[in-house]
């Protein structure tokens, strides 16, 4: 019998390292062999194939791959019909989101997108750029680049660029200003529609989704444990967030309770001082591996 194996696309490039870390957090022993450009994973049912997210979206659509980690922008760029299993956002809690923007050099005479008419625009995502220009009723020349874009290109080779912006600093460092944001793009787990019709493959892909999303959420959540007396309980329960119902256990032979819950780390920053004011004792916050709601 042929051994069942999921063909899984692993994102080459910007999201590669963070994806590896997320798999590790989800409990996989996975590593990237730099010399041979190969991903090794300790699950004999998964075969990882390293590929660029845009190409991956097409491969998943066509069924060459069963599933993979890609991005919303890549799926859009490839025009691929795939099923989104879960949104992993940015693979870790980051303050700013990845956007695709139109940018021009700071000293450029181009002030608004209307000024882009008849200009040259360089981009790594020509289909997204084309759709954007069509929608804005602007005709301009689109030049494709397969590498990272920067300021020396804009101004020399072309007048503007349509490029990913993971941070504002990056644009600032290259003396670029943003004219408009085209879209925001999350990292997503995608799957082939036919693969999902096969029970084994569907369960394997969904399972991976639970684990990866669970590991992703655990980066933002913590466990919280505390002791509260009977009189405090009502106020304590009001203070605690409602993501997960707290588990309350009476302490042996006392009028006190042990309360256990899970909450967003940012909320916990606010909750702990409040709980202390109520009179709770023995407040312990502990890290989590996975949160599957």
């Amino acid at each position, binding site marked *: 019998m042929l051994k069942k194996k999921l063909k899984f696309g692993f994102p080459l490039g910007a999201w590669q390292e963070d994806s590896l870390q997320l798999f590790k957090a989800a*409990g*996989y*022993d996975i*590593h990237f*062999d730099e*010399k*041979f450009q*190969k991903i*090794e*994973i*300790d*699950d004999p049912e998964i075969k990882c194939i390293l590929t660029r997210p845009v190409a991956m979206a097409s491969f998943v659509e066509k069924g060459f791959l069963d599933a993979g980690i890609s991005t919303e922008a890549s799926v859009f760029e490839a025009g691929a019909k795939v099923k989104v299993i879960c949104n992993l956002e940015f693979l870790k809690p980051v303050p700013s989101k990845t956007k695709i923007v139109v940018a021009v050099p700071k000293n450029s005479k181009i002030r608004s997108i209307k000024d882009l008419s008849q200009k040259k625009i360089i981009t790594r995502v020509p289909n997204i750029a084309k759709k954007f220009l069509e929608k804005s009723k602007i005709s301009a020349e689109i030049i494709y680049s397969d590498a990272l874009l920067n300021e020396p290109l804009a101004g020399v080779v072309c007048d503007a660029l349509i490029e990913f912006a993971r941070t504002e600093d990056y644009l600032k460092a290259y003396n670029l200003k943003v004219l408009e944001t085209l879209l925001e793009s999350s990292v997503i787990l995608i799957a082939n529609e036919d693969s999902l019709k096969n029970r084994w493959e569907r*369960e394997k892909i*969904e*399972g991976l989704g*639970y*684990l990866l999303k*669970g590991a992703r959420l*655990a980066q933002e*959540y913590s*466990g919280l444990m505390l002791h509260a007396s009977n009189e405090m309980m009502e106020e304590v329960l009001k203070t605690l967030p409602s*993501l*997960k*119902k707290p*588990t*309350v*256990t009476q302490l042996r032979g006392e009028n006190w309770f042990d309360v*256990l819950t*899970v909450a967003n780390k940012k909320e916990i920053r606010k909750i702990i001082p409040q709980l202390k004011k109520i009179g709770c004792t023995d407040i312990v916050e*502990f*890290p*989590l*591996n*996975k*949160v*599957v*709601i």
Partner: protein
Amino acid sequence: MTENKLKLGIPKGSLQEYTLKIFKSAGFDIDIPERGYFFKIDDPEIECFLLRPQEIPKYIEKGKLDLGISGDDWILESKAKIVDEASASSPPFANARVIEVCDLKYAKKEIKKVKWVLAVPQSSKIKSVKDLEGKTISTEAVNLVKDYLKKNKVKARVEFSWGTTEVKPPRFADAICDITETGASLKAHNLKVIDTILTSSTKLIANKFAWQDKWKKEKIKDLALLLQGAVKGEEVVNLMMHIPGGKLNRILKILPKLKTPTIKKIAGENWYDVTIGCKEKDTRELIPKLKRMGAQGIVEWPVMKIVP
């Protein structure tokens, strides 16, 4: 008064990161200065030395170190006379100078299991160990290979290799014995594996005289307990979930039996809070299954130590 201080050898190189990690989980903080090899540990009764794992068994045998961490490979290679902790006091082992206190095998790192393999060029006529008669083998672990040949009754020349061992066949040697993790590097050098000589594990080893000293023995045993607990803890996680009353029995049946689950009823509702311990690797199958069976709010958190 003799100073109550344990001299501990920490292996530099591939075992270093893992060793520091389990010490940390065991509750010890080790401070690594940017330069130099003098580690500081937050236990005034321990003094740390960063040394190559090849040399740690030798220094333990000589009594320069009381305790250390090394691999089976380098313990065998050093030819240190070793005995396990249980038989340490029986007479036949009177000449053994090194006590194997416990195994610190790291079960999670499956891919990176250290294997010593015998390899020859793809096109070589050497098919098995028997064909090595009269040939030259290049290796960093000369004694390991000599013992292996002796066991197989084969006579061959074993040459010490200072490194880049994969490059040596066929010009500089007929075969090599080297460490491999994935086999990728061997393949890239057109080599094929003909035998595995040793699969190496990590060991905590002690000097015999340290073991005979009451204070040191206690200290070593306590440390071993914590380190083993940390190693076990690496593999295990806690899972907490909410289960509706109607599904409780069905779900309880599929839970792993590592430890009896703690079940609490949620006040005023027909829901239960169930907490279990399970192997981290099992969560891959278990979490999706629990989710499909109707468990909610599944939360997993790490375990630092497990002391049975």
